[in-house]
């Protein structure tokens, strides 16, 4: 395939994947610019938005523009690391464009962990948060199981559809149900630390920080749209928990 040698396509793909996997806007732009500059393009201009990336550059005396749309956004830190490494190594002329494509398309995990094992480990974080926010041993266990069921449900919904609102709503409802059941069966367990600990990985606090940071950096459109995304996510969690607590 001839397009495997096209560094313009590689640059736009790297930027789109950076946004897809939760990288910041300026990082996606810098990544695209460094690949294009490293391969000898001139007059590089890149616009990265949460939903699309557009790049234009002068290559061998011709202006060329490419765009890519970004449909779903998740967080995958090892992919960010890999894309960053590709852009740096291409800018340093250490690897060819084809090798860059190969590294980007290799989607396997670095650790090779199965999703169930990952969910089991992830839930331990929720247990620890429950302890930090005023819980004991009972709260740790309750938050652990609540977060595990929630995680499993979220992964199940995300494998069917990329509709975040539904998975977050259902996940927070499951958490609240688990917390109330635990409080019914064991009188010593308090509901509040369990719920807070278990929703901590769901809560968009970090997305909110990123949104404000984008706005401060000057990426106004990204900042606003990420802020709206945060708001929607917060509403989903709030209504999920509130529905169960009100019953």
């Amino acid at each position, binding site marked *: 395939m001839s397009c495997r040698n096209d560094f313009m396509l590689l640059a736009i793909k790297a930027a789109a994947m950076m946004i897809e996997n939760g990288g910041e806007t300026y990082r996606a732009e810098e990544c695209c610019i460094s690949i294009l500059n490293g391969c000898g393009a001139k007059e590089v201009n890149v616009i990265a938005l949460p939903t699309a990336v557009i790049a234009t550059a002068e290559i061998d005396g011709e202006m060329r523009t490419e765009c890519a749309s970004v449909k779903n956004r998740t967080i995958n830190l090892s992919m960010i690391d890999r894309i960053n490494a590709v852009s740096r190594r291409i800018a340093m002329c250490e690897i060819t464009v084809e090798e860059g494509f190969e590294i980007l398309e290799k989607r396997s995990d670095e650790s090779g962990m199965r999703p169930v094992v990952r969910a089991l480990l992830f839930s331990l*974080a929720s247990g620890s948060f429950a302890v930090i926010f005023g819980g004991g041993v009972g709260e740790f266990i309750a938050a652990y199981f609540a977060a595990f069921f929630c995680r499993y449900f979220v992964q199940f919904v995300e494998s069917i559809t990329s509709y975040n609102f539904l998975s977050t709503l259902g996940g927070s409802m499951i958490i609240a149900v688990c917390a109330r059941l635990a409080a019914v069966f064991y009188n010593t367990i308090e509901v509040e630390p369990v719920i807070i600990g278990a929703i901590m990985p769901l809560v968009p606090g970090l997305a*909110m920080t990123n949104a*404000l940071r984008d706005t401060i950096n000057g990426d106004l459109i990204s900042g606003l749209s990420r802020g709206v995304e945060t708001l929607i996510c917060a509403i989903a969690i709030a209504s999920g928990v509130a529905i169960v607590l009100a019953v």
Partner: protein
Amino acid sequence: MMVNGNAYLTALFTLLAVVFFAVGMRAPLRTIAIAALDGTLGYMIYILLCYYTSSNLAVFVATFVICLVAEFTARIIKAPTTIISFTAMVPLVPGVMLYDTMRQFAAGNFNYGIEAAVKTIVFAGSMSLAVSVAAVVVKIVFTKIFHSAKTPYDCAKKNKENSVTKLVSVGEVSVNKRKD
């Protein structure tokens, strides 16, 4: 937010929370240990400062320290800064305040809800301000004091200049080799 008033237990559980959060977010293995220590340090600073000043100033200083450590270690292990600071900042994120805001709105207490919402925004605002300030400070330190272009963007610009002028001085070659 201390476990039974015991600082060691709090530190231990913060460490555990950051480690397992990083595992869940698929962080590269070489960053997890640094992120966990960084996050624990930041949360301890936050708790300590909360006794003396307002929580907003405390979270500003704590996030600033986290980001400085993250920026410097990220340049050593050649990973993006975000990966380390993203996981290390998780214990500080105002999840409880956001939950409180939502619960007040759901219960119909709009006055308390708006108060809690403004508190949350100010808290998150001081965190993101600290992140931006730390990034700028580190950039100034690296470009003005050490005179080294460390970001891939700067490297690309340097490569381009080299290829255009075909003039590679001895100093630049040594800089390029050190970056590999």
